[in-house]
């Protein structure tokens, strides 16, 4: 699955998803339950705003010294006998991983959840050389066997599917004949996946946080699948975005605790695993060979720009879980594996404005995202930055909007023109008004009046009333 989801232009995606009652119900339910759960765990922790400031400080410090920490990380991985590869592009990362798979003559590869491997579109590269690639995160597994249905949520990729749909997929693809009871479905997936773990030649993981001081990687799951992926196959490859790094265990502890609370409203997830290099003498399990692939793929060109705060992201999806736009249109409408507010900021940066020019506008700027972000990314402000670039640099703003803004500038920068313009407004709107309301508006008002009435401008502006009153005209 590449970053871009091929499912048509923005409005077609939105219209389709607005019709999808099941998806919308599932998303709303997830958001409403998650809202309460998250508030519960942050209240229990206490001093949430101070924790956010600390987490922000950690992320900012790390990004400002990223070269230093990447060097330290790679030295420490190498010291423990691991291999580090810096991939500037998706192709370089995929080539490196393909070379390892060829070298190991790998037939089967098991993977734990990783957004960055989706971003670089790794699986087809490995499948092309004959590898059987198995996603082991339950959500990702369901999507993979359902002919690579794209993920609709960063943390809960199969959120848009209900248990009956999942049963049907299992029936079609795995010969499953039991009920749609989630426990039974999960048991079936577990049994199938267990055989895959035992026979896999390579395990591939993502990385929640790499720890520079020790060369370790941290994986956070509720399913324990990452532990099997990293302990059974002989070769482990961990793929990380180049910004997913913390200086020491101390900072890792803070960020993991922010991550699990923000992502799923849990104090801790069931499994938080820290792995350091390949198996050493006396270790009971673990891979014989360990590779860390550090992926740039456009990230370094975000560094040093006004969009740098987006690299603070720890992929918790708290912003997705409170977004009222995501609530109604769901993840697939974004056309990117990164959906919701973080997707609307990140996708145009990694994938360009041509494919994602609508996303910065798919927000009412309500700032719910900015409010919940555990590392204080000013998401709604970054959306405005995107709009500014689309208007000023890309020149992609609609003509009507440009004209309206020109009028705005003229009217608001000069008090006399403002007075003149607002004085004219009632007569300009008069042909459309009825009983002080406009039910069918001209120009951009049309989109408004399709679903709402618009108030007609008053013949007497507030300023007229006030002036008359000062003169002792009308008392009220």
């Amino acid at each position: 699955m590449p970053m871009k989801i091929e499912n048509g232009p923005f409005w077609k995606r939105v219209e389709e998803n607005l019709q999808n009652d099941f998806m919308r119900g599932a998303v709303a339910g997830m958001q409403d339950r998650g809202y309460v759960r998250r508030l519960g765990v942050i209240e229990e922790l206490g001093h949430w705003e101070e924790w956010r400031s600390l987490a922000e400080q950690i992320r900012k410090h790390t990004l400002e010294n990223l070269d230093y920490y990447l060097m330290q990380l790679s030295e420490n991985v190498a010291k423990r006998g691991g291999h580090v590869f810096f991939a500037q592009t998706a192709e370089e990362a995929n080539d490196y991983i393909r070379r390892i798979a060829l070298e190991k003559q790998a037939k089967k590869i098991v993977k734990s959840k990783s957004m960055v491997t989706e971003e670089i579109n790794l699986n087809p590269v490995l499948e092309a050389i004959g590898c059987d690639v198995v996603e082991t995160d339950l959500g990702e597994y369901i999507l993979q066997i359902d002919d690579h249905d794209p993920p609709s949520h960063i943390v809960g990729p199969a959120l848009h599917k209900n248990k009956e749909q999942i049963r049907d997929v299992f029936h079609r693809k795995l010969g499953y004949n039991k009920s749609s009871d989630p426990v039974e479905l999960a048991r079936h997936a577990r049994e199938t996946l267990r055989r895959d773990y035992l026979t896999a030649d390579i395990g591939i993981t993502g990385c929640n946080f790499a720890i520079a001081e020790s060369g370790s990687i941290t994986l956070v799951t509720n399913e324990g699948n990452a532990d099997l992926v990293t302990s059974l196959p002989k070769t482990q490859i961990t793929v990380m975005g180049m910004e997913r790094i913390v200086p020491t265990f101390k900072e890792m502890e803070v960020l993991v605790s922010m991550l699990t609370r923000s992502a799923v409203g849990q104090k801790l997830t069931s499994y938080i695993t820290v792995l350091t290099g390949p198996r050493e003498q006396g270790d009971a399990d673990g891979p014989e060979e360990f590779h860390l692939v550090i992926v740039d793929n456009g990230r370094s060109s975000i560094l040093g720009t006004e969009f740098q705060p987006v690299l603070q992201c720890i992929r918790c999806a708290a912003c997705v879980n409170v977004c009222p736009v995501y609530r109604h249109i769901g993840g697939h409408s974004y056309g990117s594996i990164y959906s919701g507010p973080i997707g609307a900021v990140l996708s145009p940066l990694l994938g360009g404005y041509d494919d994602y020019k609508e996303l910065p506008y798919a927000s009412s700027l309500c700032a719910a995202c900015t409010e919940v972000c555990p590392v204080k990314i000013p998401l709604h402000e970054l959306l405005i930055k995107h709009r500014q670039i689309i208007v000023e640099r890309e020149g992609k703003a609609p003509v009507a909007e440009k004209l309206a803004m020109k009028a705005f500038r003229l009217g608001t920068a000069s008090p006399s023109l403002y007075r003149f313009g607002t004085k004219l407004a009632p007569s300009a709107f008069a042909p459309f008004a009825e009983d002080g309301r406009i039910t069918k508006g001209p120009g951009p008002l049309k989109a408004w009046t399709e679903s709402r009435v618009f108030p007609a401008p008053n013949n007497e502006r507030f300023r007229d009333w006030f002036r008359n009153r000062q003169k002792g005209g009308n008392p009220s």
Partner: protein
Amino acid sequence: MKVSLFVTCLIDLFYTNVGKATVELLERLGCEIDFPEAQTCCGQPAYNSGYIKDAKEAMKQMMRAFADADYVVTPSGSCAAMLKEYPRIFRGDPEWEEEAKRLAAKTYELTQFLVNVLRVEDVGASLPGRATYHTSCHMTRLLGEKEAPLRLLEHVKGLELVPLPNAHQCCGFGGTFSVKMGPISEQMVDEKIEHIEEVKADYLIGADCGCLMNIGGRIGRVGKPIRVMHIAEVLNHRN
């Protein structure tokens, strides 16, 4: 106490009654109202659409208009929040940075001003009926004001205030969003109205005319027996 009123473009043009109520209310509480005629718009429509240069011209005009004011009071959480952003927007601009800081420091949203500066919670208003309050996003999240409107509404005689379910959720206005992303905005406002109906409110009260224009506009189109009122109108209401 002299109060300079920033009435906002929406109220100047469309919601004159809200402006009148604001003036009457503040006067009743002993304020002397000054209305600088040179005021225009806080700049938000252009700023939020990415037309930063155009927005800045409006903002400069606002700084000029209110240069001599002691207190700038506005019946809009969203516009107040925009004014409070000026120092960030003009950071490093030798000509305007200090003026931006001065304006931001003396700007108050109406209910903030009543509760935190005038130190009054009971303004002597009365309005019989059942009401729910829409906490606007910019008022609560950007301005950070969550308490003042509720303190004031709790003291309105005869008014039964019921909490709005999912109050934290945006009503779908978002300025140009409501037009650019009309079909999505419509779903958002419909959900808001469902929640208002759920608590059987006679009145929907808010502190931002943008949200009220959106919610009221949809209520007007689908025909629901809910009256939409700005908090200034409620606080100025006496039987």
